[in-house]
């Protein structure tokens, strides 16, 4: 943990062309409506010499995968790309249009002297081939995928007006020896790296919304306590309220406070820690278990789990601890609430007939939608920063692995295969 754990990534991007005009509003309207048409895009391998051909292939494939995952795009079949070279169309743009692409990202890449240099150009094939951007991306050669993710996010933003998520990370817990350590990986399950070495049990990593910091709970010094891990690998113990259990940390939207559960007052209650003063304030007071608190994105409310009315259910209160009301009645056991980035939905794990499924509650109406359906246990849902995807832990393959799905439960993809991954959290966009 002495190394820089978050693999400090500097992908330099330089706008070569003038800053492009914003994407036409028409496209934005189309993709945000229901039944939108996906944008047809071609991503050929960037031109490269023999030494850089592998990087070129990996960049193109990664960008295609990212754009496919985003849900905004339909990737034109790469087997059609060679036709554009022999096309009789007057312009390259027209040639790409002839294979069905509305947009195309072409480029050149070279890997030499310990540097990766990608120049990528995004072009509209209609409107006589407008160049939307022309940029250079650089970094060390081992960051090929990172560079590709950055390009994919730039394409998403250019063509949809939305922020992409290809450069985000997922932190999670995995078995290591006799313990469980904190790991992280790219959002697509690649580049997995372990970031703690405690020889103990650690759970529930949570990203700070404003920095490359993780809070998590750890048994490394005995009773479960809350640690904060910074990008430089430094671990600091949060000055929680006392007692022998301080668990389930979540950050306030400004990253300055941590809400958590503690038995400092006798049984599990919700507390909030102000990181600058080190002072904790108690928010709940009930003889029941109150735990798993999580801030609403606007910071005004906190959802949490309580068994004050019987089996655990999700409740919500004002951030000052007042105005507690019950949110879920779904199933007989609910935990692990997670607000969507817009705050209009709360995902949680609901148990019915002995199995957990991921359920999403529409906050304004209280209506619930079950997203998984009796394939093992499905728990600990967390949203992607754009609110379009959910990562969760599922035992459908035997042991617990991490999966993603669209916010409507479709397009389930498996991220890990070890059978020992739990409690994921999707990073906010990397600052």
């Amino acid at each position, binding site marked *: 943990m002495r190394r820089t754990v978050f693999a400090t990534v500097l992908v330099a991007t330089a706008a070569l062309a003038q800053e492009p005009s914003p994407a036409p509003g028409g496209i934005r309207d189309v993709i945000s409506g229901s039944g939108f048409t996906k944008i047809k895009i071609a991503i050929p391998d960037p031109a490269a010499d023999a030494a850089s051909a592998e990087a070129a292939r990996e960049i193109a494939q990664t960008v295609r995968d990212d754009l496919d995952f985003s849900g905004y795009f339909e990737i034109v079949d790469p087997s059609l790309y060679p036709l554009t070279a022999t096309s009789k169309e007057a312009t390259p743009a027209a040639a790409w249009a002839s294979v069905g692409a509305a947009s195309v990202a072409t480029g050149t890449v070279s890997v030499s002297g310990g540097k990766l240099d990608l120049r990528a150009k995004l072009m509209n094939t209609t409107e006589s081939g407008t160049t939307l951007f022309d940029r250079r991306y650089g970094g060390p050669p081992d960051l090929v995928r990172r560079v590709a993710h950055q390009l994919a996010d730039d394409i998403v933003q250019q063509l949809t007006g939305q922020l992409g998520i290809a450069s985000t990370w997922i932190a999670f817990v995995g078995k290591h020896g006799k313990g469980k350590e904190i790991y992280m990986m790219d959002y697509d399950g690649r580049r997995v790296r372990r970031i703690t070495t405690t020889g103990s049990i650690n759970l529930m990593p949570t990203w700070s919304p404003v920095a490359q910091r993780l809070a998590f709970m750890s*048994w490394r010094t005995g009773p479960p306590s809350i640690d904060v891990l910074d990008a430089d690998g430094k671990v600091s113990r949060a000055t929680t309220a006392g007692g022998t*259990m301080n*668990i389930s940390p979540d950050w306030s939207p400004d990253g300055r406070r941590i809400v958590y559960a503690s038995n400092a007052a006798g049984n599990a209650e919700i507390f909030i820690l102000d990181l600058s003063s080190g002072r904790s304030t108690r928010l709940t007071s009930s003889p029941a*278990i109150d*735990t798993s608190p999580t801030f609403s994105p606007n910071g005004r409310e906190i959802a949490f*789990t309580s068994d004050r009315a019987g089996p655990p259910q999700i409740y919500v209160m004002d951030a000052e601890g007042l105005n507690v009301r019950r949110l879920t009645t779904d199933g007989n*056991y609910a935990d*692990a609430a997670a607000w969507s980035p817009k705050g209009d939905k709360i995902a949680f794990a609901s148990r019915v007939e002995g199995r957990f499924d991921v359920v999403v509650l529409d906050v304004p109406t209280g209506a619930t939608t079950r997203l998984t359906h009796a394939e093992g246990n499905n728990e600990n849902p967390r949203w992607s920063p754009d609110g379009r995807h959910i990562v969760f832990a599922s035992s459908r393959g035997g042991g617990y692995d991490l999966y993603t799905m669209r916010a409507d439960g479709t397009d389930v993809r498996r991220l890990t295969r070890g059978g020992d991954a739990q409690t994921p959290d999707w990073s906010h966009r990397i600052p």
Partner: protein
Amino acid sequence: MRTTRRPILTALAIVATLTLAASGCKKKAPETVPEPPSPPAPIEETKAPDTAPPAAEPFPSQKVNTTPVEQSIDDLNRSGVLKTVYFAYDSNDIDPAATAILQGNATWLKGHAKYNVEVGGHCDERGSIGYNVALGDRRANAVKSYLVSLGADGSKLVAVSYGEEKPADPGHDESAFAKNRRAEFTIKP
């Protein structure tokens, strides 16, 4: 007096080592019995307890009662002087079986007041990871409170929840679950 008894004790220790090795038991000799300085060759041959024939008793039985001055903490934990109690599903109620066990534990604790003891609260895997940590805490604290009500020194007892993270039985059926919903005791240095 100790010095004069040492040869006999050393011989006994060798016997004990041979016997324990042959039976595959890992129990350490009591602390008052010194380890043999360098084990004689035959000890090496007893290292495969599964395949080796039972070692013939190399000395006639000479049972001597020894009383350890003090058991090590490891020995105390292994000997199970403080017994584990079990819980019903999603419950921290101390049932009659647990009551009887905890009364015995309280008696021992009162007689050995110098020890710090961790009360570990555990859950089966069916609940959620997060809630189970809080439930394990409730179990550990219920046990601690009951022991204190029986006269044990609360300042020597630390309730620590492990949630579902340290199952006693790794199985996934009801019999494993029943073994995992527990509070167990660890005497600490």
